[in-house]
C-alpha cells in the first residue's frame, strides 16, 4: 500500500525543522546596513572610480583637497587644504595644507601626498582624469606644473587663467582625493602607481576606512580611528548588493537592513504608510533628456525640435509616473548649481506643436525611432512621450536595448532620438555646459564626444560663449553668462530637457543623520546615529 501521509509528514517535518522561532533580527546598534544595487562598482581607486556607488564610498572614506557645504553648494572651504591664493596672472594657485593630521594608516598628511595624488591621477589617465587635465596638465608636464614648495605648501600652475570657482569645484571631485603616498608606494608594482592594489584597497583619511569589497556582494566600511573630525557613531557601515527593489522592501520591513536605497514608485507608495519607516529624498544633479540627432532629415528642422518640446506632458509624468523621483526642469544646469536657470517655459501643447510642424512642412507628422534603455523607469517614460507625440502625428518607434547597447549606438551617432540621463561630473556649471553647449569639432573622429557632438549639433558661436564663461573670474558675472547660455539653449537646441532626479531612500525610524547631498559623493553617513 502506498501511504501518501508518509511523504506529507516528511515535508512538514522538514519545514518545522528550520522553523524554530528565529529572533526578530535587529541590526546591531553600532552597525548601519544598507541595501543597494552596487554592481556598478568597478574600482575603489579615486583616480579611476567614476560611478555613483563608488563615488559615495570614496566620499565617506577619502578627503578631497576642497569641499563645500552639501546644503549650500556655493559655500566652498578647504578639507585637506587650509587656504589658497591666486597669483596675479590668475594662472597659479598656491595651496597650504592643514598641519598635524594623519591618514588612517597613521602616516602624516603633507603637501607631498597632495602633489602625489594629483600627479598620479593625471599620469594614470583613467576616466575621471579629464577633470584635472582640462587645466593643461599632461603626463609629461605635470611634475613641473604641480610642484611642492614646502612641507605643507604646493603650487598648481594652469595653462590659462581659469575661473577660480571652476578650479576649486574640480578639486572637490573624487579624483582630487588625497591618497596616502607612502602606503600606495609600498604596493607599487612595475610603476603602476599601486593601481592594482588600490582598486580594492584603501589609502585615505576620511571618517570611514574600506575594509572589504566583494564585487556584487558586499562593501564593508569601518570607523577610522585616526579621522581628524568628529568620530562617527557607527563602527561599521555595510552595503549589501540587493538588486531587486521589492526584495529591499521586504528586508527593510523585517529590519534586516536599516536603509533601502533602490525604490520604485510601488515601494514608495507602500512604504509611506508604514509608521516604522521614514522616506527621505534630496535633489540630485542628474538630468533626464532626449537628444535629437541632427543627421536625421526631420529632426534637423528647428521647428521640429521646438514642436517636440511642446509634446511632453511634463507635469503629469512628474506627478504620477515618476512620482517623488523627479522634478520638472528644462535647462541644462541642474538646480543647486551656480547659474542654474529655473524657468520651465514648456508644457504639453498639441496645437502649438501642430502649427510648428506645419511650418516645417510636415503637417501630417513623420516617423522616427527612439533608443530606449530597457529599465522600467526609462521605458515607462518613453511610452508616455510616445503617446503625446502621437497626438501631433509624430510616430515614435521605441527600440529597446540595455545600457551598453543604447550607449554604443548613441556614441556612434547612429540613433534618431536617444532618451536618457546625464549626471554632472563635478559641481561647477562648466561640467554640463561642456557637454550640452560645446562642440569644438563636429567631424566624425573628434578628440572628445560631448552630447552636442553625439547629436551632430554644430555650434561654433555657442562653443565660444561656453569657453568664455570658464575664464570669467567674477562669480556673479559668470553665473549670468550661464543663465544667458541656458536661455538660448532652451530655445534652439535639439535637446528636450525634461526633469531633474530626486534621490529617494527609506530607512527605519530609529536611524538619524544620513545626509543626502547634491551628488552621490556628498551622501554622508558620518553623522548617522541609531536610537
Amino acid at each position, binding site marked *: *500500500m*502506498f501511504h*501518501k501521509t508518509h*511523504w506529507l509528514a516528511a*515535508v512538514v517535518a522538514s*519545514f518545522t525543522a*528550520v*522553523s524554530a*522561532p*528565529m529572533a*526578530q*533580527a535587529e*541590526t*546591531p546598534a553600532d*552597525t548601519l546596513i544598507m541595501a543597494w544595487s552596487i*554592481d556598478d562598482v*568597478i*574600482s575603489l581607486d579615486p583616480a579611476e572610480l*567614476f*560611478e555613483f556607488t563608488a563615488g559615495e564610498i570614496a566620499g565617506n572614506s577619502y578627503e578631497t583637497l576642497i569641499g563645500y557645504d552639501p546644503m549650500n553648494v556655493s559655500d566652498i572651504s578647504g578639507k585637506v587644504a587650509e587656504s589658497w591664493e591666486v597669483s596675479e596672472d590668475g594662472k597659479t594657485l598656491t595651496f597650504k595644507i592643514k598641519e598635524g593630521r594623519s591618514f588612517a594608516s597613521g602616516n602624516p598628511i603633507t603637501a607631498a601626498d597632495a602633489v602625489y595624488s594629483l600627479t598620479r591621477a593625471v599620469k594614470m*589617465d*583613467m*576616466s*575621471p*582624469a*579629464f577633470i584635472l*587635465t582640462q587645466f593643461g596638465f599632461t603626463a609629461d608636464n605635470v611634475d613641473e606644473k604641480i610642484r611642492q614648495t614646502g612641507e605643507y605648501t604646493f603650487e598648481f600652475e594652469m595653462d590659462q587663467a581659469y575661473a577660480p570657482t571652476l578650479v576649486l569645484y574640480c578639486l572637490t571631485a573624487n579624483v582630487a582625493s588625497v591618497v596616502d603616498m607612502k602606503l600606495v608606494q609600498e604596493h607599487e608594482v612595475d610603476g603602476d602607481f599601486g593601481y*592594482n592594489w588600490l*582598486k580594492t584597497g584603501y589609502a585615505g583619511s576620511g571618517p570611514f576606512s574600506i575594509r572589504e569589497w*566583494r*564585487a*556584487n*556582494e*558586499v562593501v564593508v566600511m569601518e570607523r577610522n580611528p585616526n579621522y581628524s573630525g568628529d568620530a562617527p557613531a557607527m563602527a561599521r557601515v*555595510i552595503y*549589501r*548588493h*540587493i*538588486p*531587486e527593489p*521589492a*526584495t529591499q522592501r*521586504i*528586508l527593510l*520591513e*523585517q529590519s*534586516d537592513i536599516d536603509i533601502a536605497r533602490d525604490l520604485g514608485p510601488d515601494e514608495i507608495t507602500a512604504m509611506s504608510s508604514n509608521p516604522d519607516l521614514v522616506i527621505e529624498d534630496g535633489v540630485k544633479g542628474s538630468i533626464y533628456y532626449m537628444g535629437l540627432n541632427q543627421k536625421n532629415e526631420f529632426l534637423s528642422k528647428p521647428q521640429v525640435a521646438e514642436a517636440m518640446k511642446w509634446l511632453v506632458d511634463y507635469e503629469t509624468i512628474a506627478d504620477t509616473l515618476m512620482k517623488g523621483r523627479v522634478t520638472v526642469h528644462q535647462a541644462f544646469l541642474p538646480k543647486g548649481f551656480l547659474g542654474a536657470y529655473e524657468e520651465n517655459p514648456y508644457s504639453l501643447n498639441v496645437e502649438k506643436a501642430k502649427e510648428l510642424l506645419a511650418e516645417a512642412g510636415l503637417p501630417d507628422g513623420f516617423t522616427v525611432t527612439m533608443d530606449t534603455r530597457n529599465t522600467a523607469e526609462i521605458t515607462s517614460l518613453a511610452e508616455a512621450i510616445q503617446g503625446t507625440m502621437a497626438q501631433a502625428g509624430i510616430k515614435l518607434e521605441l527600440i529597446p*536595448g*540595455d*545600457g*551598453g*547597447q543604447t*550607449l*554604443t*549606438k548613441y*556614441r556612434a551617432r547612429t540613433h534618431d532620438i536617444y532618451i536618457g540621463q546625464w549626471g554632472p561630473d563635478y559641481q561647477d556649471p562648466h561640467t554640463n555646459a561642456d557637454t550640452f553647449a560645446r562642440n569644438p569639432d563636429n567631424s566624425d*573622429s*573628434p*578628440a572628445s*564626444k560631448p552630447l552636442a557632438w553625439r547629436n551632430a549639433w554644430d555650434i561654433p558661436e555657442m562653443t565660444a560663449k561656453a569657453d568664455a564663461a570658464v575664464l570669467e573670474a567674477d562669480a556673479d558675472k559668470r553665473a549670468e553668462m550661464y543663465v544667458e547660455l541656458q536661455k538660448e539653449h532652451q530655445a534652439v537646441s535639439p535637446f528636450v530637457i525634461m526633469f531633474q532626479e530626486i534621490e529617494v531612500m527609506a530607512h527605519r525610524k530609529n536611524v538619524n543623520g544620513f545626509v543626502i547631498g547634491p551628488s552621490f559623493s556628498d551622501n554622508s553617513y558620518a553623522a548617522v546615529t541609531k536610537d
Partner: protein
Amino acid sequence: MAGASKTGGRNRALPFAWKAVKLIASVALTFLGLLFVTFLIGRVVPVDPVLSVVGDRASQAVYDRVYIELGLDKPLIQQFWIYLQKVFTGDFGSSFLTKRPILDDIIRVFPATLELATFGVILGTILGVPLGVLAAVKQGRLADQVVRVIGLIGYSAPIFWLGLLGLLIFYAKLGWVAGPGRIDISFEYDITPTTGLLLLDSAMQGKWAAFRNIFSHIILPASLLGYFSMAYISRMTRSFMLNELAQEYVIAARVKGVPEWRIIWVHALRNAAVPLVTVIALSYAGLLEGSVLTETVFAWPGLGQYLTNSLQNADMNAVLGGTLVIGVVFVGLNLLSDLLYTLLDPRVRRRG
C-alpha cells in the same frame, strides 16, 4: 551541447582505447564549437566593451588606449586564436570589469550556485520521484490530477513571482526562514570559507549557530529550485513508470503473488531509474547554470548573477569563461549519466 545520444545499433565491440579517443575528441570538439559560437555572439552583440571599462565620460585618448589593451584592434579570427592559445595554458584572461583573473572570479561565485543547485536537485529528486510513482500508480485518479496540477504550477508560474511570494510568506509573515543573501552579517566573519560551500564549511568548523543561519537562508531558494526540478522529475518519472508497469514482467510478478508495493518500488522503479538518472542529471545541469532570476530575487552571489552582469557589459572573457564552466558541467554530467546508464542497465552493458 553534447547530448546523451544512444546508438541502438548492434555495433561491433570497439577496443576500449579507441572509444576513449573518440570520446575525448568529441568532447574537445564540443568545447571548441562552444567557445567559437560564444565568441562570435559576444562580438556581434552591439555593445562596446571599452565603454564598460572606461565609462561614458572618458576622453578619446583613454578610450583608444583601452581599445588596444583589450586587443580589439586585431582581426576577429586573430583575437579568437590568441584567446584559444591562452586557454590551452590555463589562462582564461582577466575580466574587463573586475580586472581579476576569470578563474578567480568563477571560483569565487561558483560555490554559491553549486550549493544551491545541489540542495535543489536533492529536494527535487526526493519529492519528484515518489510523486511521479504515485501519479503512475493512480493513473487517471484524483492523486494523478493533483500531482499534475502541482507540476503544472511548477512549470508555468514565473519563478520571480514565486520567489517573492515565498519571501513574503515564509520570511516576512511567518519568520520561519531568513531573508535574501547567503548568511547574516553577524555570522559573516565567523567562518573561514575553505570550500566556499558555506553549509559544509560551517559544519566542518563546528560553527553550529552559523550553520543554522546559513541553512535558514538557503532553504527557501533551494526549495523553489527543488520545486521546479520536482515538476520535471515527477512528470518524467510518471511516464517511465507507466511504461514499466505495462511490461510483461510486472504481470508475471503479479501472477506469482509478489506484493504490489514490491512490484512498484523494487522491480518497476529499478528499471525506470535508468532513464531517470539522465533526467536528474540534466535537471541538475540546468540548475547549475545559475538560475538568474532566483539569484536576483534572493540576492544570491552566484554564477547566474555574475554571467548576467558580464553579458550586459560585454565582458567577453568573463562570458566565455563562464560558458566554458557551464559546458564542462554539462558535458561532465552527461558523461556521468551515460556511465551510470551503462552500470544500471544490463542491456547497455551487454552491447558495450
